[in-house]
């Protein structure tokens, strides 16, 4: 049964990744990143159950904390960029190039 969770996790992870690639709104991109993190968390949790050890859950817990921190900083950055560039599209922030 547990491997089903892994498959679900893989699918959601990939959906998240594809979302990062195709969406231009920075906020949505962030949401996709969150989705990917959640997908891995699911995998961790099911592995924890599979191995009968709580370490997986601990990791998932830490991932959540780090994700929260990341979201805070990331959204702040989005805000700053929006303030100066009046846009939340990741394609508009493309000055760092050749």
């Amino acid at each position, binding site marked *: 049964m547990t491997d*089903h969770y892994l498959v*679900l996790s893989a699918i959601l992870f990939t959906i998240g990744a594809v979302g990062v690639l195709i969406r231009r709104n920075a906020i949505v991109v962030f949401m996709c990143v969150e989705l990917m993190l959640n997908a891995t968390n699911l995998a961790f949790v099911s592995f924890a159950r599979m191995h009968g050890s709580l370490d997986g859950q601990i990791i998932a817990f830490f991932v959540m*904390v780090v994700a929260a921190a990341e*979201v805070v900083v990331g959204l*702040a950055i989005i805000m700053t960029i929006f303030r100066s560039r009046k846009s939340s599209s990741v394609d508009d922030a493309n000055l760092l190039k050749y």
Partner: protein
Amino acid sequence: MTGVVAAGAHQTGESAIFWVLAVISVAAALGMILTRKAVHSALMLATVMFSFAVLYAVNEAPFLAFVQVIVYTGAVLMLFLFVVMIIGVSSTDSLVETIKGQRVAAALVGIGFVVLLLVGFGHATLPKTTGLKDANANGGNVMGLARLIFTKYVFAFEVTSALLITAALGAMVLTHRERLRPKPTQKQLSKERIKSDRVAPLPPPGTYARHNAVDMPALLPDGTISELSVSPVISRRRTGEHEDLHGASPEVVARQDTKTVKAVIDKPVEVEEEEQ
């Protein structure tokens, strides 16, 4: 809580929950990346997260299930929604892809990746699920986790707290705007007002317009819009909904408005002369 844990024991019950939630979460995830509006995406993400919370519970992780609901759905998603509101709740992505071949490539790589992972799972020899009964035995799941966090992972835990504080500080620093001039006093403001061309209060949004939504600019006497009447944040959104709003600075906008009004005021005089 015991009920949820017990649900793990019943294979059929669990698989039922799984299949329902799996379908929901995959659909929501797809919806999230496919809807044009950020708000909708956020709602879809909330769906996924709720489903995950349930799945955690099913996976003998009740603590995580609650954390998921509280932290993710409660805090993180709310944060997202706040930002979405600031940036424009109704803003939508354009469907035209600017980078050539990005979507196709993304889709292909995505499918390939999934296939790879699935093939990998298929070939992997996974151990038989042992369940967490033993691990949760001594005081339950929360106690088990706490024991680990405050012993084995205490260093990581401390570092994480440092990370959180830093992140909070970082967010403040990033969003903070330095006040370069002292805050104008009431007196100064009124003097400014008298000196400017517009002594009267700013037109509220929606004046003479069909709606009175905040993002609906007021109309000037000649029928053109007054950008001044809309919050600069709104007028700056590049969403394409308001073609008239250019996001110019308040000073420019004010000058433009004044010009228009003056032109209108001057015009009737000519008309009167004609009538005479």
